[in-house]
């Protein structure tokens, strides 16, 4: 199952709820303001680092670039482009959007 998060982890608890409810082995894709969660040295870095042991964490690269934070992404976060987003949506049986 693919989980997408489009809200800043500092503004809502979408990231927290997602990783608390997603099944091990799932893919979590950060998009829009959700990509801020992928940055290193933040207040939520430890939460994301822990989540990496159970999920594949991806972030939409065009959204990282737009926000000027593409060079501050944590190691272990997989960057995907729009075509990669489509592939993830097609390869997974369901998509849950944590709005």
């Amino acid at each position, binding site marked *: 199952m693919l989980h997408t998060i489009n*809200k800043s982890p*500092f503004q809502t608890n979408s990231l927290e709820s997602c990783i608390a409810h997603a099944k091990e082995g799932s893919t979590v894709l950060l998009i829009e303001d959700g990509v801020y969660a992928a940055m290193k040295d933040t207040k939520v870095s430890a939460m994301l680092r822990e989540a990496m042991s159970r999920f594949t964490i991806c972030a939409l690269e065009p959204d990282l670039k*737009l*926000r000027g934070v593409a060079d501050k992404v944590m190691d272990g976060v997989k960057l995907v482009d729009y075509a990669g987003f489509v592939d993830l949506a097609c390869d997974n049986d369901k998509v849950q959007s944590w709005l």
Partner: protein
Amino acid sequence: MSDIKKFMYVNRKAPYGTVYALESLEVVLIGAAFEQDVSLVFMDDGVYQLAKGQDSSASDMKNFSPTYRALEMYDVEKLYVARESLEARGLTEADLIVDVELKSADEIRDLMEEQDVVLSF
């Protein structure tokens, strides 16, 4: 002139995800024509508005961050950034596109109290 008022714009939202940041910038630029005492505060996710290196070439959004550099030309020179907000997001002053003054929450509180008008975005 005795009719100059102190206006503070409080920016707390990340750019692009919502339209608040762009709307705030537009109101600031319109307001600048009235030659008031203007200050801008960036706190919480609002600090992301000033992140260097915003690049819209791979997306359909417009990168409006260069406009923050134009504020100086409109005599909008009081730009304050909440130090705690910046640090919580793994950013430093060097990551910002404009010169700002870092302020503690206490200092921002005092600045806020001095204002005639506070506008929130």
